[in-house]
């Protein structure tokens, strides 16, 4: 049996939703598909399928360079009738930001969670920012509303995840506390940084901003160890197409 490469690109924050005029991360995920006109489906569920967000997606992913579609789970009568078939026929599924709690609730109600797992297994590249990053992991730090909360994600990636990991955002502090309280090891990304996973293995960290970084967080006893991961700035002309990561960082953290 042919085994497809399972790939996820998890943005801390960035792409057309947050970086108008900076297409580096969006170009990167389109490039990964290897298709001349990749089929890209946008899932804006975390925003409640906000119209303005869908319009911005179509503006950023114009028909010149891809075949863009979207699925609105609030207006199922308008979209493709066979959602599973549509999602499995894509090259890239792009998940927008918003409320990860609402996102997962709506996905479960429509059976999207298992379809996305199937799509991943069959080689469709999954990506997204913010809530659209948190959702792929086993556990996540949601800071969408009020105090940061621990949330269970789809669990395709057996790690924890924290997005918008900027200094002084309050999320970092909460993430460290959750780790000490037993949350599994994982990854945190600043805005502009993105983790590219092949299977469950982190292949590289790329960024749309020269200073944006990704971090790996582990717990040693009662201490949290945070490691900054070498990040490839995609705007750098000398950026290697695929700089391999040191062994220590690409291996899965101990469970």
């Amino acid at each position: 049996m042919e085994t497809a490469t399972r790939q996820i690109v998890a943005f801390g924050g960035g792409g057309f939703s947050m970086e108008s005029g900076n297409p580096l991360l969006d170009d990167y995920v389109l490039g990964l598909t290897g298709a001349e006109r990749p089929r890209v489906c946008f899932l804006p569920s975390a925003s409640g399928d906000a119209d303005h967000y869908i319009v911005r997606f179509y503006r950023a992913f114009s028909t010149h360079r891809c075949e863009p579609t979207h699925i609105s789970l609030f207006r199922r009568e308008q979209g493709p009738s066979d959602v599973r078939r549509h999602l499995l026929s894509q090259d890239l599924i792009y998940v927008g930001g918003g409320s990860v709690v609402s996102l997962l609730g709506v996905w479960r109600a429509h059976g999207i969670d298992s379809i996305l797992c199937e799509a991943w297994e069959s080689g469709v590249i999954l990506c997204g920012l913010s809530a659209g990053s948190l959702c792929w992991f086993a556990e996540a730090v949601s800071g969408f509303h009020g105090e940061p909360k621990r949330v269970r994600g789809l669990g395709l990636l057996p790690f924890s995840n924290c997005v918008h990991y900027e200094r002084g955002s309050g999320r970092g502090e909460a993430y460290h506390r959750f780790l000490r309280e037993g949350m599994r090891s994982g990854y945190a990304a600043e805005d502009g940084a993105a983790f590219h996973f092949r299977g469950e293995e982190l292949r590289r960290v790329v960024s749309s901003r020269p200073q944006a970084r990704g971090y790996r967080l582990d717990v040693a006893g009662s201490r949290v160890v945070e490691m900054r991961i070498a990040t490839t700035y995609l705007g750098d002309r000398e950026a290697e197409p695929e700089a391999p990561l040191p062994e220590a960082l690409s291996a899965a953290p101990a469970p």
Partner: protein
Amino acid sequence: MAGGPGLSTATPVRRILALGGHEFSSRPADRAVCELLLRLAAERGGERPRICILPTASGDTSEQIASFYAAFGERSCEPSDVALFRLGRRPVALRDHLLDQDLIYVGGGSMVNLLAVWEAHDIASILSLAWRQGIVLAGQSAGAMCWFEAGITKSSGKPLAAPGLGLLHGSLCVHYNDEPERRAAYLDAVGEGMAGGYGLDDYAGLLWEGDGSPAALTARRGARAYRVDSREGAVAESPLPTRFLPAPAPAALREDIAEFRRIKTMRKRAGWLT
């Protein structure tokens, strides 16, 4: 507010208003619905009752929120909204805010998504408590079916049965004669064993006040409410007697204009004008 029926020591009356379909427009039938909502809220909250919209079923569209404020913003009440998809920008203490209301109105949209998002945010238990405390629960379309054990929703495209919160026994089908395919799906579902219940046309409503049967209301001539039951293998549909809700004068009508209109009407009646 003190001494309002909801705040007395006696068990509060549980009230739910389920509407088959309406908008927040300035048309007479829509004004009649708004007037009823205001009256129900005022019976609990006094002169300036608190009314909150949950626009969850629409995905918190700004259109739904704006039309709600357009209808209630200038009236004697304190309108607010809880947009679960927008909490990041506008944090709200969900439980405290909802339990502080006199009336909670749930807008239309996807019933399946409504219940899924409520479950994710643990809203159902708050609404059930609100109901027991005498806070009026109201809504149209998905926002009406959600209170029953089941409804007929087009959340997945075609009309299909979906479970609700179950505060009210039985089932509800909205837009009854306005969407024949929805009514047909409902009659089939009840025939196949789904709990019976009610069919509501747009601008028809059912008001539960305490235990017992609901009162059927209409805000538009010809809009009907039906009792739908399965009896000996056949589904029976019987129209309920309804009370008509007259439309109030447009809210924005200025006192002097209203006076002028009254004089004009009187003159017309007296035959001074043709």
